[in-house]
């Protein structure tokens, strides 16, 4: 039965249900319980955003706090995954990947290929991304394109509580390394989520809204803004189809191209910076495989090629908003009206 819960609770529920189902699932990260070694509560935090709250006492010995040593514990999660465990490790902010990226992209991602198919590394690396919390340049980036670039990794961007639970359940059951991107501004957003466990397959886009005038492909936290833009566009007679790919690796190119065949116009909305971004990736897809379908230039709506600024007014300018998305859609439609 579905009830309304938050994005945070949906992720927590998926992890809890998988921990109950499979003793190989363990959780580790900085303050994932929160309170190790101190005189107070042993589970004071449940992760810096409370996502793993309550798991410590429900699953004794299976929620491990770590020192602030991302290389060591992300590597440990990867190593444990090669020996029959299914670790869910939290790399608190994706901005911190700089201190442990080797373990992810040179080790986990490559084991299966380098070892001739004789490795299975079912690790989930949860990480927080995105601007909007005034957290500035080193705690706000949307770095999923960097992971998408790496063969051997799967990259997941849930855009709602429903997706968060189904994709997390799939991520834990998946036999490949998965990097699971949680938008930090979405933890308190709510939506209908079934109580029972379910999975959402990777590489299958969701058509979040149907429309025949313009295709808007939006990733993760940008899906809600694209839907907002679509509502505004509808009032001026433009019907936008909003596609939520849900995973950037694998990427459901088929659904994107099918929609493009219908609309002939494409807007890609990506919170990351523009160079080598998902926007550029999808634009290249359209230019290559969808060239004959295009009736207008592809519009890329992204952050600028700058670090994320701190001051509120600047950060608000940085992140793509509904107005920019709507303007891009109008430009595409006006090109070939």
């Amino acid at each position, binding site marked *: 039965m579905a009830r309304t819960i938050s994005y945070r609770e949906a992720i927590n529920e998926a992890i809890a249900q998988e921990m109950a189902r499979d003793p190989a699932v363990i959780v580790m990260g900085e303050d994932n319980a929160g309170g190790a070694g101190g005189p107070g509560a042993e589970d004071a935090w449940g992760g810096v955003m409370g996502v793993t709250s309550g798991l410590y006492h429900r699953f004794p010995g299976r929620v491990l706090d770590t020192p602030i*040593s991302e290389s060591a514990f992300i590597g440990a999660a990867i*190593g444990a995954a*090669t020996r029959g*465990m299914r670790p869910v490790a939290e790399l608190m902010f994706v901005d911190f990947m700089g201190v442990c990226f080797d373990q992810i992209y040179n*080790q986990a991602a490559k084991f299966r290929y*380098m070892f001739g198919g*004789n490795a299975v590394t079912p690790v989930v690396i949860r990480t927080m991304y995105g601007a909007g919390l005034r957290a500035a340049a080193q705690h706000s980036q949307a770095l999923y394109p960097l992971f998408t670039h790496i063969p051997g990794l799967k990259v997941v961007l849930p855009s709602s509580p429903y997706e968060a639970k189904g994709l997390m359940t799939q991520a834990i059951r998946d036999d490949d390394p998965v990097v699971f991107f949680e938008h930090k501004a979405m933890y308190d957003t709510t939506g209908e989520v079934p109580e029972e466990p379910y999975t959402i397959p990777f590489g299958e886009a969701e058509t979040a809204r149907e429309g025949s005038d313009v295709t808007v492909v939006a990733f993760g936290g940008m899906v809600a803004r694209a839907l907002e833009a679509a509502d505004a566009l509808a009032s001026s007679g433009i019907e936008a189809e909003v596609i939520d790919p849900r995973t950037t690796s694998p990427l459901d190119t088929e659904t994107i191209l099918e929609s493009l065949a219908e609309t002939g116009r494409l807007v890609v909305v990506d919170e990351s910076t523009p160079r080598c971004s998902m926007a550029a990736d999808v634009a290249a897809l359209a230019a290559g495989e969808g060239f004959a379908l295009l009736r207008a230039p592809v519009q890329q709506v992204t952050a600028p090629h700058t670090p994320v600024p701190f001051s509120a007014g600047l950060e608000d300018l940085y992140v793509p908003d509904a107005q920019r998305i709507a303007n891009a859609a109008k430009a595409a439609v006006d090109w070939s009206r």
Partner: protein
Amino acid sequence: MTETIPTDASRGLDPDGLLRAYRTMRTIRDFEERVHDEFATGDIPGFVHLYAGEEASAAGVCQHLDERDTIASTHRGHGHCIAKGVDVTGMMAEIFGRATGVCKGKGGSMHIADLSRGMLGANGIVGGGPPLVCGTALAAKQQNTGGVAVAFFGDGASNQGTTLESMNLASVWNLPAIFVAENNGYAEATASTWSVAADNIADRAAGFGMPGVIVDGFDFFAVHEAAGEAVERARAGGGPTLIEMKLTRYFGHFEGDQQTYRGDEVRNARETLDCLTRFRRRVVETGELTAERLDAVDREVAALVGGSVERARAAPAPDGADLLTDVYVRYE
């Protein structure tokens, strides 16, 4: 050089154990010397880093390990692979880039692995292995297998943050992990006396709350004893140990290295410290093994390694279609 042979020379090793140790070290030596020769023909592609000279370390540690246990290795990984039981013929084929290699020709010398043997891979990244060993040690602990995990790394990796973080994490989590620093005196072309800001790598153990031991890495029996204590402690829940092996690599950092940064330590080591020579002399003098039995091992190993080269040379290269396989378990 003379040494007093203690009456407990075998230290718990029966003649079969001693033979196994000798066979492991001889196999590594022959394998590496043969790869050195084959590399010189130009038929082995890429980068190769040889372990010859350091055999006692891999053999003395891995003699204590079984199928519950895991090891992580380095770019200089052939010896660790052999000591952990990876198939020699498959290894040689891998180094030649053949489809019959243990990694189907897709890994090469720097990435030989056999997870079914608990061998987590040679590793092209200096310091790449210790975090992984924290993970396999954690798995052994969570699964109550009694298994231990060993990170072999060099003096170069002893300066990597990953290694230091891993030693800290292993102590914090009280993991059944053993950190084996093989200090062969040089990280590439840079002397460890210069790059390691401590008298000994083992001294760093104190900073991570674990025992640190310095061992003559040319002496199989010293290695075997120190590793035995560390493995026993780890299996009993006593946590990690750092062991520093002082030793010398007989070849360059990589094949082709002119080694102009070195003095004459290799000649000295070969003449006075060599692990195989010392092992042989000792077990023959104590009467635990005869020269004839050891000679027989030498012949068997020579045939095995020679055969591995013949088979590797005759083996097919990977098929072009293999380029795209085994990136994921499933991807669609």
